[in-house]
């Protein structure tokens, strides 16, 4: 037993403050933390700007408009919209351009490269799922509903590479959207078909080549210098 004089009020308050200020992670964060084996990485993933609710709602609204336009015009607009949306989302996933505490984040034990990787993969997966659902709802042909995934990969890799090299999310998003728009228009002029940009087999290899090259550029741009220079 201790008398009242022995009560350490600072310690008591700290115990209360610990409970009052404690943040309870949601189910998604707990599950992600278990999957990634790192609560820090899970928290970093779920704070990605392009995975936050306002961004997701905006994406759903744009895809919804694409579904409506596809149904009324018969043109597969969802297949053309989805890669551009995903590219912008990837550019805004991580980096000095969008993270106000970038310098601080860069000195953390959970490496910035790992954060970039999980965020980019998650953003890509979420956008792919949303795009596929929108394609299915729009009643597009099965081939068109999935063919845009390859060009989407290429445009996302391009946006990521530009965003990491230029250290600017806006530059990455602009590059992705601009290159995608130019590609769509060029292929349409050459083939006379608006869907050719996602359906032509001859374009698959160039898309894959762009994806690999841009991924390598992003990896190089985020490399950690090996060894201390002597």
């Amino acid at each position, binding site marked *: 037993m201790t008398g009242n004089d022995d009560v350490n009020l600072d310690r008591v308050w700290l115990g209360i403050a610990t409970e009052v200020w404690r943040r309870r992670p949601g189910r998604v964060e707990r599950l992600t933390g278990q999957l990634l084996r790192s609560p820090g990485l899970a928290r970093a993933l779920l704070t990605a700007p392009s995975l936050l609710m306002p961004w997701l709602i905006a994406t759903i609204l744009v895809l919804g408009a694409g579904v409506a336009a596809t149904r009324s015009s018969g043109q597969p607009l969802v297949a053309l919209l989805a890669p551009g949306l995903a590219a912008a989302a990837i550019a805004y996933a991580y980096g000095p351009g969008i993270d106000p505490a970038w310098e601080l984040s860069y000195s953390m034990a959970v*490496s910035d490269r790992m954060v970039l990787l999980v965020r980019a993969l998650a953003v890509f997966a979420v956008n792919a799922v949303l795009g596929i659902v929108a394609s299915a709802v729009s009643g597009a042909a099965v081939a068109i509903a999935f063919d845009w995934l390859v060009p989407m990969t290429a445009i996302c890799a391009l946006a990521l590479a530009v965003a990491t090299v230029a250290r600017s999310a806006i530059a990455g998003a602009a590059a992705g959207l601009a290159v995608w728009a130019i590609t769509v228009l060029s292929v349409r002029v050459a083939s006379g078909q608006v869907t050719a940009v996602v359906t032509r087999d001859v374009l698959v290899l160039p898309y894959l080549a762009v994806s690999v090259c841009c991924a390598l550029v992003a990896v190089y741009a985020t490399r950690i210098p090996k060894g201390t220079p002597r």
Partner: protein
Amino acid sequence: MNIDIADLTRRFGRNQAVAGITLQAGPGVVGLLGPNGAGKTSLLRMLATVIPPTSGTMRLLDRDPGSSDSRREIRRRLGYLPQNLGYYPGFTVAEFVEYFALLKDMPPGRIPAAVAGAIERVDLGAKARAKLRTLSGGMLRRVGIAQAIVNGPELLLLDEPTAGLDPEQRVQFRALLRDLGKQATVVVSTHLVEDVGAACTEVALMDAGQVVFRGTPAELAAKGTDQDTGDAPLERGYTAVLAQARALAGTRR
């Protein structure tokens, strides 16, 4: 030694920010003084493993930050407050400190108590659940200090921590520094020589990318004379050493 660097240099294009610094430091508070552009921030960024050196050798907490496993271990035991603390406006104080505790790989079970302790140490308990966008500049600086100390770092690097703090907060902060320096190596970059005099066990004065003086605050103060510029002995010592270093550099050129 928690810091053991030799002939460390850092170049940004044509600009030589750090020009061959050799420094060892164990537990205690080291004040880093110097004019703007002296290389203080570049040195702190290298020590924080944010940028690699251009040349030289560096060991932190008895590890080589050049290897990824060692760097990760160093970062777990490191606290860093950058000159420009970016923050997430929608986070609360507690969420911000907790976020960086998680990124420092702290055991999740220890984090809530560590967050509460760090917030209390910087006297922000009343604002723990306030959004960062509602805080003043001085409060944000204290949030930055809280995230830096949340993991009980063995190496603490603070770049102008007292900028924006009012006199009362600065006095409290000096006491906190003295307390932290009992077990950790604390490197504080500042323009305020009175902070160095009150809180630091050692001082390193930088100019043009080099350390031009190293000793105790009393030794620096003793370098000054009544003819030197400054209102306090430490300020006069600071200006005297700088003037000597610049005269010497001018003679060499």
